[in-house]
């Protein structure tokens, strides 16, 4: 069974069409990233999948059910990490996580989750005393405490320092290894590349490309850039046959600083959303 199946999803706010016919399939156990600029329809799409928002048209199945009518049992099977919550400020981290554990039929161990999210040192601290990145980790802890089969992560690492981000990535990989399906929306392309099995780019309410991080938008077949230095100075060529170019260079002497670069995911992404001239 697929964890998420979306056909022809549509949603408008008054005259503004936010989502104009999206098709999406996420297999069980997959880490799927949804990329796109602000206002592209990412949040609307995820909020429909999470059951927060009613859709105007299309067919949506999340864990086999329609989120618009799914009940408590379904809610116990999904986990949601929201983008901007500042609640429960006067409770401690441990109290908050324990409180949420009580909402679920088969929660994870409270201390284990606190540890997984790197909050052990802050477990006794009031949530309001935490830094932005630490608060975010509490959000993640509350999203996974119920042992979800499907986890929604909406820009989970905003405000993290690089080390916290790496730790968070490890956590996502751990959850994924345990079989959790993850739908990730993010602004960070390196994050999508590091975590996602597959990804899709949304622009202006449509999916403009879908694939794996290495094949998205023809990334694997796009021309590569080969650069090097020799007695005449620096050289750079764009070529569909970088191996041939390198083999040729090998016949010369005095070559230094040889580099072969595939287009980065960022290059491909910016192309796709039309941000590049």
């Amino acid at each position: 069974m697929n964890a998420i199946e979306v056909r022809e999803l549509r949603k408008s706010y008054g005259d503004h069409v936010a989502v104009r016919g999206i098709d999406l399939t996420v297999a069980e156990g997959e880490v799927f990233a949804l990329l796109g600029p602000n206002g592209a329809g990412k949040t609307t799409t995820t909020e429909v999948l999470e059951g927060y928002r009613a859709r105007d048209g299309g067919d949506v199945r999340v864990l086999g059910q329609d989120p618009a009518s799914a009940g408590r049992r379904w809610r116990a099977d999904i986990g949601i990490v929201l983008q901007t919550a500042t609640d429960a400020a006067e409770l401690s981290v441990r109290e908050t996580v324990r409180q949420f554990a009580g909402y679920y039929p088969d929660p994870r161990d409270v201390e284990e989750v606190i540890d997984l999210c790197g909050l052990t040192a802050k477990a006794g601290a009031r949530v309001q005393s935490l830094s932005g990145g630490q608060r975010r980790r509490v959000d993640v802890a509350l999203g996974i405490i119920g042992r979800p089969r499907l986890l929604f992560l909406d820009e989970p690492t905003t405000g993290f320092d690089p080390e916290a981000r790496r730790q968070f990535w490890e956590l996502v990989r751990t959850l994924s290894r345990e079989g959790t399906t993850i739908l990730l929306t993010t602004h960070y392309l390196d994050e999508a590349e590091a975590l996602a099995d597959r990804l899709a780019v949304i622009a202006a309410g449509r999916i403009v490309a879908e694939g794996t991080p290495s094949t998205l938008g023809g990334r694997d077949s796009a021309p590569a850039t080969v650069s090097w230095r020799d007695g005449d100075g620096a050289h750079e060529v764009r070529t569909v046959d970088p191996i041939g170019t390198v083999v040729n260079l090998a016949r010369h002497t005095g070559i230094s600083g040889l580099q072969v670069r595939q287009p980065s995911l960022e290059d491909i992404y910016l192309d796709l959303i039309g941000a590049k001239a």
Partner: protein
Amino acid sequence: MTAATLSPLPSTLRTGLARGGAEVRMFFRAKEAVIFTFCFPAFVLLLLGSIFTESDPGAAAPMSQVFAAGMIAYGILSTAFTSVGVGIAADREDGTLKRLRGTPVTMASYFIGKIVLVAVATLAEVALLLAVGVFAFGLELPTDPGRWWTFAWILALSVIACTLLGISASSLARSSRSAAAVLNLPVIALQFSSGIFVAISTLPKAMLDIAAFFPVRWMGQGFRSVFLPDSMAAGEVAGSWEPGMTALVLGAWCVIGLVLCLTTFRWTERRTG
């Protein structure tokens, strides 16, 4: 996976009581709430009771005791109406409600949590006001069980009506910051016009007539009937305690509150764009 292997979902009541515990802890840990919402009625009572020290001629109880008994109405307004209204507006704004909607928690659990908070905070508030009344102004607590019965039903009806109205009022405010201001306007207006902050004998008749449509006047009158000697009923608008009318008006406001609640409650903020 078959249904037989699934652990049962926690019951609405259990989740609601757990939420209640958390709500109470959060309420009493927020210093501003404790000082400005919780202690404020006792503070006003201390001031008024110390300013208006002269009694009406021939009255069986000093003015300070009249304030002490009536101020319980203000206590209930602040712990049931104002804190619930502001609290729900804040829950809507800070993501509490949205987050809960993404969990198996039901709306009923959420409200059970609020009810627990109101019950605990109100009992503590009433105890504080009575302590001030007894120790600062010599108010005597009744020994007659009949009076405590009257106290119990007036308290129950007042808390239910004020809580339901507070839940409805939370939808009026656009943000939690404006909620405190929006909710305080009717609270302050009704305290004056219902004779909680001033002596009833000083109020114009038109003001008293209007206030008679609202619950605060009946709450104040009801609590005075519990804690003041019966001869003090002469100072009330009708010259008697009117327990039947009190029950009727407060009961009606419970129904109005419930209807407003069911028709206006929103899980989320109004969409702004």
